[in-house]
């Protein structure tokens, strides 16, 4: 949908994910978006270089979020929200709003 603006579809999907989920990491996006990790990492690297996102290391995982100091953040989020509202419900559910367990799980507990 926004591929022509962003240059590729991965950037669009990563931005939608950040809009909905607030933060994300590479392997999580690989799973939810069904995109190779290499492409995700390239997209995140590009966004980080441009100051759109920032990242912090937690354990072995690098967590990404929108850069609250990015001067066009409000406008970008408004734009993405509008674009997101044009996505069909099934696409939203499939890629961005998949229910995720957020409550704690004791370590070592079988699934």
């Amino acid at each position: 949908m926004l591929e022509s603006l962003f240059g590729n579809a991965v950037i669009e999907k990563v931005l939608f994910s950040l809009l909905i989920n607030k933060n994300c990491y590479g392997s999580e996006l690989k799973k939810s978006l069904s995109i190779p990790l290499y492409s995700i990492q390239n997209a995140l690297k590009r966004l980080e270089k441009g100051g759109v996102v920032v990242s912090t290391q937690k354990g072995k995982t690098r967590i990404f979020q929108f850069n609250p100091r990015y001067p066009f953040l409000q406008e970008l989020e408004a734009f993405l929200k509008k674009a997101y509202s044009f996505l069909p419900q099934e696409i939203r559910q499939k890629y961005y709003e998949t229910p995720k367990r957020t409550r704690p799980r004791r370590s070592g507990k079988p699934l």
Partner: protein
Amino acid sequence: MIDWKNISFENLAGYISEQLRQEGIETVLVGGACVTIYSKNRYQSYDLDFVTYEDVKKVRNVLINLGFKEKSGCFRHEDCPWFVEFVSPPVAIGNEPVEKLNTLETPLGMIKMLSPTDSVKDRLSAYYHWDDTQTLDQAVQICQEQAVDIKDVERWSEREEMSEKLQVFLSRLS
């Protein structure tokens, strides 16, 4: 001939700015490097962050001709303790574009950089958003050495909806 081993942080910023200017590339020094200069080295940054609106390829060619090597977007001269990075434009503090820049003459060239007041806002921005107390300390250190327009810092902080954290900063100044 540049003494890369012993060049001061400020002179390196002046030299890089001037060499790029001679190739038609204007830059603005931002971030922790401004704190080092304004706090008279009470805080020591190790990287010079410049913003430029020019093509990064042009910038790269100039730095490589000066003897720098690029690794992961950072430029380093093998004998020099500091490294140089180019961050994405615009020059902005939070939601506001930076209108007025400061200039500083060094023996090796002129630096365009954030004003002390904008540098304080830049540091506070990191404190406001990430609770980074190191940058709060840096904002205070600038105020201890430079004339800072505190009214403007207050206005900007309120616009950023950070009035509570502003009070923490103000209490450190008294």
